[in-house]
């Protein structure tokens, strides 16, 4: 992160200690470029989340590159015990980003965990591939962490006058230890009524292939989570992983519960152009 530290300190100087901070300036950051790794789920099922991430990053003055050769990080195979198959896919991912030093932004906690925590372990220590994987891991940021920790921005200028709650996705929370960054961003949205739910850190029950291998347990866990969401009185549940949100949304729609899921990027993209 050769540029990150400097930018953080520069950005911090802009934030006034009292009163609401102005939305982050775009001028300071105009030279930054990032690669967006959009994840296969977002590409296929939730393209609006990817578009929102682009919109937010651009608003913050960041140029976004998208390499159209990208597919997946390898997580589905890895979590199911197919390391060899995961290694093939991870190798493809790494090949796209091995030769530059741009930060890689991923709008998903579990995919970012895969790249940062698990992919290096797929290659033997001391190998060239391991060195590449380590380098890519260091340059990879989950979306909310990138905005708060690298750009030093909390107030993105979005406005959303609704009651929302936040679900901590497990990999984001326990592999990447990210819990404050998304909350800071949510609290700074204009007009928002942010209600912490009880047990926000309890797993929603998705768990990758667990959701179909043990669909009954997965469903029971999801239903429990939905009770906590409903108890908070929120109309929207915000998350940083479309996989958790897909599971919760599937349950909510089946049960006709009027709570909507929203990715953090979609929330932050709610501003007037």
């Amino acid at each position, binding site marked *: 992160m050769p540029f990150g530290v400097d930018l953080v300190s520069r950005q911090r100087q802009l934030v006034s200690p009292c009163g609401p901070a102005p939305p982050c300036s775009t001028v300071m950051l105009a030279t930054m470029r990032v690669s967006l790794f959009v994840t296969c789920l977002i590409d*296929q099922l939730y393209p609006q989340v990817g578009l929102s991430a682009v919109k937010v990053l651009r608003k913050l003055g960041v140029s976004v590159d998208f390499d159209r050769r990208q597919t997946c990080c390898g997580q*589905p195979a890895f979590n199911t*015990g197919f390391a060899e198959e995961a290694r093939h896919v991870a190798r493809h991912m790494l090949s796209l980003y091995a030769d530059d030093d741009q930060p890689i932004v991923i709008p998903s906690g579990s995919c970012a965990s895969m790249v940062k925590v698990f992919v290096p372990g797929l290659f033997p220590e001391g190998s060239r591939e391991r060195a590449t994987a380590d380098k890519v891991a260091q340059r990879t940021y989950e979306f909310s962490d990138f905005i708060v920790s690298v750009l030093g921005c909390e107030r993105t200028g979005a406005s959303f006058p609704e009651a929302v709650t936040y679900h901590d996705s497990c990999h984001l929370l326990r592999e990447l230890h990210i819990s404050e960054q998304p909350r800071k961003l949510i609290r700074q949205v204009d007009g928002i009524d942010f209600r912490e739910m009880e047990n926000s850190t309890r*797993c929603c029950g998705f768990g990758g292939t667990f959701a179909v291998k043990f669909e009954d*347990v997965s469903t029971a866990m999801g239903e429990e989570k939905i009770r906590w969401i409903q108890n908070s009185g929120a109309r929207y549940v915000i998350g940083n992983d479309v996989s958790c949100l897909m599971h919760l949304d599937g349950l909510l729609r089946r049960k006709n519960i009027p709570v909507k899921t929203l990715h953090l990027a979609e929330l932050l993209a709610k501003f007037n152009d």
Partner: protein
Amino acid sequence: MIEIRPQIRSALADSQLQKNLRLTLSKTAAGRRQAIAEVANWEELRQHARQVKAHTISRLGEYLELLEKNVIAQGGNVVWAETGPDALDFIFQLALEKGIRKVVKSKSMLGEEIRLNEELERNGIEPIETDLGEYIVQLGHEHPSHIVFPALHKSKEQVSALFADKLGMPPTDDCEKITATARKVLRRHFLSARMGITGVNFGVAETGTIVVVENEGNARLSVSVPEIHVAIMGLEKVIPRAEDLGVFLKLLTRNATAQKISTYVNLINGKRRPGELDGPSEFYLVLLDNGRTRILADEFLRQTLYCIRCGACLDVCPVYQTIGGHAYHSTYQGPIGAILTPQLLSAEDAPEHPFASSLCGACQEICPVKIEIPHILLKLREKVQDQKSARAGRLPLERWGLQAWSWIMTSPGRYATTNRLARGFAKMFARKGRNPVPPLSYWTKSRELPVLAPKTFRELFEEEERKS
């Protein structure tokens, strides 16, 4: 091979169990949070305990021999048992030699692991569980559903009904009356049994001390009234120094039962000495391997042996909270059970256990010795899949599917073609309600499918690029 799906289904359908789990586990969670918050250097203690365990496990043979030497020096006997049957044979022989027909037992998961009660009964020896929870489970012909709270799956009403049935107690919802009934029955057994069998929480190598942590005084009676005390201990329970006991006890009791310290901590140094009024005249320490040295062989997986059996990972596990302990159908339940069972047996014997987890990591977060349970689960999943592929002769369907997936995902061209095809077929899936095609059928049993977006992100992104 251990089958867990039927157990899971019945656990989910058991509304009384669901109620009991919810009630008990929410209470323990609040207590634990408080008990941990009181210790300012909790994280340091965890780190220290992990280091001590890592060190000990890496020099296990050395410390076990030191423990043996110091137990013998105090007049005790040490028995090395490679397998469960080896340990059982020793106990039967000893009982036979001494003419023992009844044994009082204090809680021991290792005893469960080697099916001690069933085997004792089969050999004509009556085992009496003296821990209240274990006693309840024994009366009901069940197995523990939790490492620390064996009868966690039962409500007090259910226990009352059981005692009324088996012991003739007038039904009551007064826990004190229930406990008093058990106490009265058990006292008789303590006075008439000539052998006491206990588990071991820690074996201190440098002093030859056996540490037994408990709350009811039943372990203390088991080791002081009968003339023979047999302690059974898994190899991994040895710690080098008495000095570290303070750290381990603090971590254990706060994490297990939210207590600053348990009501009794028994430090047992061998048998009764000349001039002492009570205590056994013979003391035997059985050191049992039963698969543990196999776990030791793998440098990553060996951290499984750091476990001090506090049971906290069960309490915080959303899967355990949902299905309880019996669904795991094995001695050890919850996250620690899911990693221990396939290793003590083999991945082939318990192929479902590593997959019965959402990998949420709450277990690792609470673990007093920071065992990386989710990462171990992943490693074990890999083992299971590799064994399945090696055994099947042909590619298992799941592996075939993920190989095809990997073939698609490693080529942008194939990925794009698949996307176009998928959108062609999308109409098949784009409906509300249940879908008959596996694996979608599993998903749609309780959930709606997401809608396949008409255009992918990359298409939309490029359209936008062209516009600007």
